């Protein structure tokens, strides 16, 4: 699914924010990406969802070497990735339904199917009564659920979430993580970046832990070593 080999990332002429990152994620795996604020979690996710290209090293996504991917190939690759952004990144002038519909419209889905699918998924995340609400009228938790619905509407192969529990209380945060688990059970590969150690201790998944730009692998508590799930 994803393979990083000795990847480094720097912004401009600054020092590297990610150094010698190497790991492989198998299809259908679930990982937490942990680390203190400023450790490089968002930067690593940006490399995964192709917002940045690495300064060095090899990134392979869906079996494709990203260094060889042309600009024209990126949209198709990106449509296979669902992203829940830290700040939700909802478009304020669009309704919840139209926000969720964006990936479907980009892939040319017929309009009748779009409305049906988006209505269904918004009901699934508990927002069936807010289909036409603008983001400015929604609470933080509701916005988060719209963002999650948008990230999975296109049945992505890879789901990346950047601090999805950062703007909600623990109760809603827990419900969101259960939601990700449900998606994982459907076969989606999930990576969730968070610094909320207390919340994720309730789940038994391996961690990718970043510390000052370097990655450590922490296995799941039940004894499964990450390597057993990795190539």
């Amino acid at each position: 699914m994803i393979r990083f080999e000795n990847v480094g990332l720097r912004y401009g002429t600054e020092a590297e924010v990610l150094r010698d990152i190497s790991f492989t994620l198998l299809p259908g795996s679930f990982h937490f990406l942990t680390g203190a604020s400023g450790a490089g979690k968002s930067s690593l996710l940006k490399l995964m969802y192709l917002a940045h290209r690495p300064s060095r090293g090899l990134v392979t996504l869906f079996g494709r070497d990203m260094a060889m991917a042309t600009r024209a190939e990126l949209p198709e690759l990106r449509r296979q990735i669902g992203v829940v952004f830290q700040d939700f990144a909802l478009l304020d002038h669009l309704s919840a339904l139209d926000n969720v519909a964006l990936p479907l419209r980009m892939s040319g889905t017929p309009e009748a199917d779009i409305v049906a699918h988006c209505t269904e998924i918004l009901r699934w995340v508990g927002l069936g009564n807010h289909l036409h609400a603008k983001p400015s009228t929604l609470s933080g938790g509701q916005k988060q659920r719209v963002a999650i619905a948008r990230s999975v509407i296109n049945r992505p192969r890879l789901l990346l979430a950047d601090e999805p529990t950062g703007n909600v209380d623990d109760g809603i945060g827990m419900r969101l993580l259960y939601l990700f688990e449900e998606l994982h059970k459907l076969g989606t590969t999930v990576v969730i970046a968070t610094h909320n150690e207390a919340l994720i201790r309730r789940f038994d998944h391996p961690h990718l832990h970043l510390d000052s730009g370097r990655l450590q692998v922490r296995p799941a508590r039940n004894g499964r070593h990450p390597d057993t799930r990795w190539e």
Partner: protein
Amino acid sequence: MALLPVRPRSDLPLAVDPSARFLGWITALMVFLAVLASAGAMLVSDMARRWDNGLAGGLTVQVAPLPGAPVTPLDERAEAALTVLRASPGIRSAVLLSGGEIAHLLEPWLGPEAADPLLPMPRLIDVVTDGPVDVAALRLRLASAAPGATLDDHAVWLADLRSFAGAVRLVALGVVVMIGAAAVATVVFAVRTGLAIHRPVVELLHLMGATDRYVSRQFERHVVAMSLRGGSIGLLLAGGALFGLHRASQGLRASMLPDLALASWQWAALLLVPLALALLALVTARWTVLRTLGSMP
């Protein structure tokens, strides 16, 4: 002030941009000017064609009194000229204008005194042709048969008229081309501004898998909608102005101005002006967006 409140759904909130307002109004102004320029060229072309049709296919022979000659020989020379003309190939008819008709022609300059029989009036022959006429040979024969007779084939008038009509058409074309260039510059500016304002949203759409064409379609829909709205207003204003001019020209007591009415096909052609401008805006918007996004990483 927005032109119309209708705002189709768009991933980019372009309709609320400041550029959206000025784009519509500038398009209205451009269409107004382009329609007036095109209509002006059409009217002048029609006028020139009518004059051309009136003058072409005709000749005028003037038999002037010779100094010191009696009146009778003038009529004899006119008859001789008529005989020569009627025997010449390519001439359908040759009619001698009566003294009253000549006086009527001269009345605007000489007044009622133009009918004074003591005035040494020339004789005029109106000739209608139905084929090619050897004007040079005819001149020689007329000069031989009717001394003092001159032949006017209106070549100078026609040349001037055609030159004038061509110049007007050229000016109108230049105006339309300049308006088109201004429209392109306006759309380029509006689209670049929109891309700069909404760059974070464009980047977000890219991250969700939007192609450059998907983004460009957002801008294309916007500029075409604004162009059509502004263009419709410009067309209505220009149509009203043309109708007003037509009514004003009809109200003139003296028929100094030609008829300023446009034919149905000409109105139909003018209806295409806002559509053409919208098409130009669409192509320009697509080109600008694709070119700008193509330079992004």
